[in-house]
């Protein structure tokens, strides 16, 4: 789905995208300033504390965000950049399941989940191919990391052995 369709209602898309980007940058800048000044000490210019440098950066970021919001966008980005939902979701879910499974599920299960789920990023291979690829890459990963690199990562789920 092209990103244009999400925000285009408001008017000229080329401008809208930079306005959105600028607002996001401003928000980050303000958040950094607020958090830094609230959480750590500013110190003095003679003896700068941990808050000083981040606060300055946050302030600069806020100003730059304002400029970005006003900036004319290069027309080129719009046809090139479309949000590709399918690979984005598939790969994020794949990595997420790896993160959830790796500690207790072990390498084999975690890689299988990662590869199988993230292979749904494209629709060109069959489910059987994806299944075989997932098993092959699990084995490959174990050989490389536990074998060649000599790491002692858990291979199979806890409780089975």
């Amino acid at each position, binding site marked *: 789905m092209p990103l244009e369709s999400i925000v285009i209602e408001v008017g000229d898309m080329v401008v809208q*995208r930079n306005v959105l*980007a600028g607002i*996001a*940058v401003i928000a980050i800048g303000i958040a*950094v300033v607020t*958090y830094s000044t609230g959480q*750590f*000490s500013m110190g003095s210019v*003679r*003896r*700068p*504390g*941990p808050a000083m*440098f*981040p606060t300055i*950066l*946050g302030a600069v*970021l806020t100003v*730059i*965000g304002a400029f*970005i919001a006003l*900036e*004319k*966008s*290069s*027309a080129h*980005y719009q046809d*090139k950049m479309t949000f*590709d939902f*399918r*690979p*984005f979701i598939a*790969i994020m879910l*794949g*990595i*997420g399941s790896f*993160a*959830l499974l*790796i*500690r207790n599920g072990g*390498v084999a299960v975690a*890689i299988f989940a*990662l*590869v199988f789920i*993230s*292979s749904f*990023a*494209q629709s*060109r*291979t069959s489910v059987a191919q994806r299944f075989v*690829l*997932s098993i092959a*890459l699990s084995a*490959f*990963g174990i050989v*490389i*990391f536990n074998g060649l*690199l*000599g*790491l002692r990562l858990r291979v199979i789920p806890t409780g089975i052995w």
Partner: protein
Amino acid sequence: MLSELINNIALGLDTALTPANLFYCFAGVFLGTLLGVIPGIGVLVSISLLFPITFHLEPTAALVMLAGIFYGTTYGGSTAAILLNVPGTPSAAVACLDGYPMARSGRGGVALLMTTVASFVGGSIGIILLMLFSPLIATYALEFGAPDYFALMVLGLVAASSISQGSALKGIAMVIIGILCGLVGADVYTGAMRFTFGYTELFDGISIVAFAMGIFGVSEIIATVNQSQGRQLDSGKITFRSMVPSRNEARRSVLPMLRGSGVGAFFGALPGTGGLIAAFMSYAIEKRVSKNPERFGHGAIEGITAPESSNNAADQTAFIPTLSLGIPGTPTMAILLGVLIVHGIQPGPMLLSDEPALFWGLVMSFWIGNLLLLILNIPLIGLWIRLLKIPYDFLFPAVLMFVCLGVYSTSLSSLDVWLVLLFGSVGYITRLFGFPAAPLILGFVLGPMMEEHFRRALLISSGDFSAFVSSPISVVCISLSAIIFVYGIWGSFRRRGQDMASSQMTIK
């Protein structure tokens, strides 16, 4: 002076020729070429992929291998460009212009051989300059104070983020966000926990591996999964006989290679420019000086030899500011510096005097690596061609496997895998909004050092901000940064970015 250089070369060879370092040099250039050949896996993805493996090595071996991957991908990148008209790495984009027409007309073998030779020539000239200039600059830099370093870093970051990419403002914003990410963790001076949000795993800061892999590896994969269909291999038969250039072609290539190397060496040492710009520049120069420029784009040999020597020379001279000042000009160099820091080695001018074996060993390994590439590339071209036929649909899950397992293996913490997910989505979304990713990693690596120099400068001057413009170097750097910054903003508002971006796109 000369005897000192000879001693250093001997020391370097001593280090580089140990069986272990030789092996890692070979592994680096081999894996680099292999990953460089595959379109969609560029230098940054290759380096961040193999980065975790080098965690388990000693620092010299780790650097030798990562550097080998770096210049190896440049060699490999042109192979895909010539045979497929798809640049394996961005800096090989120029090789498509004349390389692909050569392959179409059955002269692909010559093109491949000549790019390899040109790469070697460019690489060699770059290494010689690196050997001569780094010690000089480092000696000079020993006298720099905190304000000078701060100013140099500001210049490096501003230049790197506003010169090459579309919007200067977005580049600067990314640098700052990168610096802020680099500041996460315990404060050096007071021990205060900054931006850790209660996660004990973040006390030592965000893992550079997770950061680099998310920003470059994962977001790159998401963006390329659906762009890789419908490639056609136009290799014909590549035999050894078909690689021999005609006498005329060989003769026509000599001067372009030398000019290309010069251009590349210059741009490589500057922050923010590097191989891609160097290659484009030297292509433009060759076209201008040529007696019959109409041949360009239809398989002119100068059109591949000049840019190839240029981007390889740039690869080598990029190490000059990185190793002699500790200030990286490109994201790749930032990652290499990150490796040094992870191994507890402080980058900067002291590196040459404190760790001569590491520095000279690394430099001499460049010779060995370039020589290996020259020897390896030609007989292995058949292998590279076969590799180009593996569908990307099988490759990207393998890359993801290396990313996740690699990150997890460095820390045994699943938080780092979550960080990969976070930075991967941040990298992908910011890309959609036209933000360049490269400045993030530069800011990330330089951020903590910058803050240290900033605070030290204020401590020494007891709070006087004029300390930042107290020496000639800092004045020059700060004013240059200001000029580049203002020019960049001015350019953004005049749609300069559009012209830059479209001129690069048409070539792809």
